[in-house]
């Protein structure tokens, strides 16, 4: 598989503030790649650097081997779906979709035909002559997609395109976006702060924080094998416990849990001493004897699941998720329970 985008040690500074601290990553052709992170992590800045709206301070961005740093946005074969869509309010839907083709010099008949085809693809042929303001949010979103895809960019950039939609539409659009990416075979770079979005659509995800890439991997990788505390905490729900590391052998570690019980778990980095492990709340079960002891404080009913808010006998808050089944016997609040860690449930993290 060839590399579509190669980002090499990109630094972006605004005056004294640094938005990107040497970001490097490479994205393959045909990949659905997501930049995931909280507000202010630098994901949007990175996207704008690829699009050409911002100059990089240091480093280079290669598009199929060609360094595009310094190219004006109109000379880059990448197109963007903007967060608020940025549909030209004074042009019809069709003119919006045909705009890029017109700028590339395509004749009227050809571009009208192609724009029409694009509208067909997003099921909006009937709306070609409307103004953007006459469409619903979901329809505007699809026009924005059609407009960005019409000139057949090599890479499509999507800047939180679903954030302005309501939940139901958002869920439907996830499927539609993924299908569209597979149909067109164009590389998608998708920016979001919504982990569910990232996990459901992406081939690979780059988790970003404070201008740095924390981890790159598939949805499964970053959920099950987070490399550091930030990723473990940001993706999904987790319990972070401070443990004493006895020794590390290869990629496993011998650690002592609060309460004194020792276990062996997967490890990334870090030598002996006080460090953190992550335990996902659903990778635990109640047992007669276990690795940890906790007092049940509250039970929250979530439908398919039950959430137990407990406190370890050593004082730390601890969450447990149990599947809701008829057989689940629930300990009453105030009772002490023993928790059994499933195989591979705990993971020693880098700080």
């Amino acid at each position, binding site marked *: 598989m060839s590399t579509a985008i190669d980002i090499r040690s990109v630094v972006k500074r605004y005056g004294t503030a640094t938005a990107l601290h040497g970001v490097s990553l490479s994205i393959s052709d045909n990949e659905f790649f997501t930049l995931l992170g909280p507000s202010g992590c630098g994901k949007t800045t990175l996207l704008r650097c690829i699009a050409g709206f911002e100059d990089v301070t240091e480093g280079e961005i290669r598009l199929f081997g060609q360094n595009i740093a310094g190219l004006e946005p109109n000379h*880059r074969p*990448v197109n963007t779906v903007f967060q608020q869509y*940025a549909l*030209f309010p004074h042009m019809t839907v069709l003119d919006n979709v045909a705009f890029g083709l017109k700028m590339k010099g395509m004749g009227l008949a050809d571009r009208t035909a192609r724009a029409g085809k694009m509208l067909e693809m997003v099921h909006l042929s009937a709306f070609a002559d409307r103004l953007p303001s006459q469409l619903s949010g979901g329809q505007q979103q699809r026009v924005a997609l059609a407009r960005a895809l019409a000139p057949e960019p090599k890479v499509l950039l999507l800047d939180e395109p679903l954030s302005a939609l309501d939940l139901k539409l958002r869920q439907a659009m996830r499927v539609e976006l993924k299908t569209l990416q597979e149909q067109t075979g164009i590389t998608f770079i998708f920016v979001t702060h919504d982990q569910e979005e990232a996990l459901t659509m992406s081939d690979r995800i780059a988790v970003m924080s404070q201008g740095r890439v924390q981890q790159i991997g598939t949805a499964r990788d970053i959920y099950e094998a987070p490399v550091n505390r930030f990723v473990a905490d940001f993706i999904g729900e987790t319990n972070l416990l401070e443990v004493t590391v006895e020794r590390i052998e290869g990629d496993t570690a011998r650690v002592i849990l609060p309460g004194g019980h020792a276990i062996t778990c997967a490890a990334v980095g870090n030598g002996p001493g006080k460090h953190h492990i992550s335990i996902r709340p659903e990778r635990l079960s109640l047992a007669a004897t276990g690795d940890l002891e906790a007092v049940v404080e509250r039970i929250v009913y979530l439908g398919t699941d039950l959430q137990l808010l407990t406190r370890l006998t050593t004082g730390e808050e601890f969450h447990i998720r149990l599947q809701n089944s008829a057989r689940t016997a629930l300990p009453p609040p105030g009772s002490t329970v023993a928790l059994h860690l499933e195989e591979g449930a705990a993971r020693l993290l880098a700080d």
Partner: protein
Amino acid sequence: MKGVRHYPGFLPMAVACLIILYAPLIVVMIYSFNGSTSITTWGGFSWRWYADVFTGPEAPRFKAAAWNSITIAVLAATTATAIAVAASLAMIRGGRFRGKSATFALINLPLMVPEIVVAVACLIFFTTIGLTTGYLTILIAHITFCIPFAYLPIAARLQGIEDTYEQAARDLYASRAQAFRLILLPLMMPGILSGFLLAFIISLDDFIITNFVKGAGMETLPTAIFGSVKQGIKPNIMAISTMMLAVSVIFVTLSYLVNRIGQRTRA
């Protein structure tokens, strides 16, 4: 029980406000159709003073003055609008730069300095550099004080246009010039029209500055009217006033409609 928005006495005050604002204008409008030669007695409805404006003894003077007023207003408003469009692009889209707040103060300076002071300063300046006062000096002065009036609505409109539209255009292979011509300019158009209309009316309206820099023999409508009313208010002045009033009302309505259309194209 009335809501917190209601205050007793505010409605009569608002109505009184409108009456005070309109009574003089309506009275003059009515008397402009007075058939009598005396302004004090009502002599039945008549168009005679309107005819007098166009054909009476003072007609050539008013025609020349009207021509000057309109051409100066068109030229001054056009020039001021062009300058204001350029300035607003720099001020709103140019990011931070040195001297930005000084430039902002400079643009608004004509609004802050009292008119009579501007008038005196212009007269002194034109006299000193030896420019004969007349059409050209009026035009220059009008362009200068029209700039902020054109600037305000244009800048306000531009402020409301997200820069993502231009970025989207650039992203879709438009050059800078194309992004300006095809996207930004049409989106700015309601603001530009408002700015132009405002500048036009302000130029047409001006008396004090024009009166100082016009020189002998040159008249605009306000100075001609002022010259006439110094000898007392005659019915033909009321006819002219009514026509100017009508022009103003048409212009406000136009600018109002332009803004309405502008709001519709706002995403």
